C-alpha cells in the first residue's frame, strides 16, 4: 500500500516549490499527458462520411484533458494538505531496477533464460542470499523447471539464444 500519508503541515515549512514531492509528481503527470495530447493532434482524421460519432482522436483528447485537470486539482489540494515526504528509496530498489535493465539487455542479445538467470542471481544475492545452493536453485534449477513446464504443457517456443538454441537444436 501507499506509504504516502497526508498530514497537515508535513512539508509546508522547509521545501521550496520545486522540491515539493506533490509538485514533482503532478508535474511529471501533466508533462507526459501534454506530450500525449500533442500526439493526438497528429492522428489521422476520417472524412465526415466515415466519421461515426466522433473523430478517433477526440476520445483520447478528452481523457488527457481530464487527467491534466484532475492532476491540477490534486496539486491544489496538496497545497492545502501537503503529502508527507516519503522515505528515501534504499539501494536494493535501484539494484532491482538495474537488474531489470540487465535482464532486458541479456535476454535480447544473448538468451532469454540466461537473462532470467542473471536477474535471479543478482536479485537474490543483493537481497541478502549468500548460500551457493540457493543461488544455484533460483538462477539455474528454477528457470529450467519453468522452461520445461511452459515448453511441455503449453508447447511454447521461447526466443532463440545461446542456451535455448542448444535445446531446440
Amino acid at each position, binding site marked *: *500500500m*501507499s*506509504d*504516502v500519508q*497526508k498530514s497537515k503541515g508535513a512539508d509546508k515549512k522547509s521545501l521550496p516549490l520545486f522540491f515539493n*514531492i506533490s509538485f514533482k*509528481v503532478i508535474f511529471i503527470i501533466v508533462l507526459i499527458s501534454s506530450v*500525449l495530447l500533442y*500526439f*493526438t493532434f497528429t*492522428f*489521422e482524421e*476520417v472524412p465526415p462520411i466515415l466519421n*461515426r*460519432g*466522433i473523430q*478517433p*482522436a477526440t*476520445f*483520447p483528447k478528452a*481523457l*488527457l484533458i*481530464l487527467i491534466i485537470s*484532475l*492532476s491540477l*486539482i*490534486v496539486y491544489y489540494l496538496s497545497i492545502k494538505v501537503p*503529502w508527507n515526504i*516519503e*522515505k528515501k*528509496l*534504499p539501494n*536494493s*530498489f535501484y*539494484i*532491482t531496477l538495474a537488474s*531489470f535493465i540487465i535482464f*532486458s539487455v541479456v*535476454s535480447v542479445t544473448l538468451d*532469454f533464460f540466461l537473462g*532470467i538467470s542473471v*536477474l*535471479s542471481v543478482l*536479485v*537474490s544475492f543483493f*537481497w541478502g*542470499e549468500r548460500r551457493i545452493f*540457493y543461488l544455484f*536453485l*533460483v538462477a539455474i534449477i*528454477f528457470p529450467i523447471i*519453468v*522452461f520445461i513446464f*511452459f515448453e511441455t*504443457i*503449453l508447447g*511454447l*517456443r*521461447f*526466443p532463440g539464444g545461446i542456451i535455448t538454441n542448444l535445446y531446440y537444436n
Partner: protein
Amino acid sequence: MENLSLMLAPLLSSKLMIVLIFGTLFGLILGVLPGLGPTTGGALILPFTMTLDPLSAIVLLTAIYCAGTYGGAITAVLINTPGTPAAAATCLDGYPLAQKGEAGRALGMATVSSTIGGIFSVVVLVFFAPLLAQLAYEFGQPEYFALAIFGLTMLASIGEGSPIKNLIAGAFGILISTIGKDFMTSIDRFTFGINELSEGIGFIPVVVGLFAISEMLTQSTLLDQIFKRVALKAVKLPSISDYKKTWITILRSSGIGSFIGVLPAEGGTVASLIGYSEAKRWSKNPEEFGKGSVEGIAGAEAANNAATGGAMVPTLALGIPGSATTAVILTGLIIHGVRPGPDLFREQPDFLYGIFGSMLIANVLFFIFGFFGAKIFARITLVPNKLLWPMIFAVSVCGTYSLSQSMLDVWIMLFFGIIGFFMRRYGFSVVPVIIGLILGELVEGTLRQSLVIFEGNWLEFLTRPIAVSFFILSFIALIFPLLRKKN
C-alpha cells in the same frame, strides 16, 4: 430444481473436481504469500487455462479467487501482515488474539466466517445475476455507456485512497485501452510506428506488471522488515459462545460484502473495512476491538469473502468486473470465447450454473484445507523473499511472454511494473487502471455508437431514463466523498 442439478454437476465430474482442488490449493498458497494474491495468481495462470475447456478454466480461476481471498487471513493472523489487501482488517484483531496464545481460535473464526460469507455470496450470485441479466436486456448502447461511467465513478468514490487520484488512475486505464488501431476507423493511435502496438496493449502484461512486478520493487524496499510469526498448534472451531457472539456480525458482514462486491470497486478490500467498522459499531463490546475481538475477525473475514460472489454478479450478467480479480476472470472468459452478458444466461445455463456450483464447492474446500492445513500453509510464509521473488519474476516473464509469444509484452510488463510501483508510492491505487483498461473499449465503443444513434446530438442521452439514472448515480458517487468529508 434443474438449476440445482446443474450447480452440483461439478461434483460428478472428476476433471472439474481435480481442477477445483488444484485451484483451491493454489489460491490458498497465493493468499498466504504477502504481496501475491488471487489477481496476480489468476493473471499468471491464465496462459495455462488455454489447455483447458472454458468451464474448467473459469472454475480454476474462480477457485483461486475464493481460496486466495481467504488465504490472506492466515498470514494476517500469524504474522500481522495481510496476505492480500482484503485481509488488512483481519490483522487488527487476528494478530492480537494470536499473541494471546489463541491463534487457533482466531484462524478458526476466520475460516468459519469466510466460508459462511463465501457461501452466502454464492446464493446472492445465483439469485441476482439472472435478475440483473434480465434487466440488461433493456440496455442499449447509451445505457451501457452510462453504466460503465457509473462503474468507474463508484470505483473512484468507494475504492481505497483519494477519489480524485482513483479517477486519474481509471482515466489512465481507459487511455491505455485506446492504444492501437481504432476499432471503428482502423486509424492508428499512440502506436509511435511500432507495428506490434497496432493490436493494442494486452491485459495480462499490464496486470502482471502492475501487481507482480511493482510488488517485487516494493519488496525490494522492505528488506529490513522482520516478521514475527506466532506459533500455531491447530485450528480450533469457534466455541458455542463465540458463535452466539458473532452470528449476527457474520450475517451482517456477508450482506455488506455481497453488496459491496456487486459495485464495481475494490471488492474484498473495501468490503472487509466496512464489515469490520460495522461490526465494531454494532458490537456490545466495541472496546475489545483491536485487542483480539472475535467479532472483529468475523466482521472482516465474512465481508471480504462475501465480496467474491457479489463481484461475480456484474461480471457475468453485464460483462463489467466488480473487482481486479474478476477483471482477470472476465479476460479468461473472453479468451475462451465466452461473452458475458444476458445472452450467456439464456444460451449457456449449464456453463453458468457450473461456475456457481464450483464457487460453492470451492468455499467448502477452502474450509476443509484451511481447517486441517493452515499449519502447513503457514509454513509457506517462511519462504524468504530473496528466493521467492526471483522465482515469481521468472514465472511472470514466461507467463506474459506465452500469451502472444511477444517480447514486447515482456517490456510492457516491466514498464507497468515500474509505473505501478511509483503509483502506489505516491498514493494512486492500481486497481482503477485495471478496471479502466478492461472497460475502456466498452466506454468508447458505446459512446461512439450512441452518438451514431443520436446523430451526434449529446442531449439525446437525456431521453433515455435508465442512462439518466446511471448518470445521476455517477454524480452522487462523485459528490459522496465530499459530503462524507464535510460530515
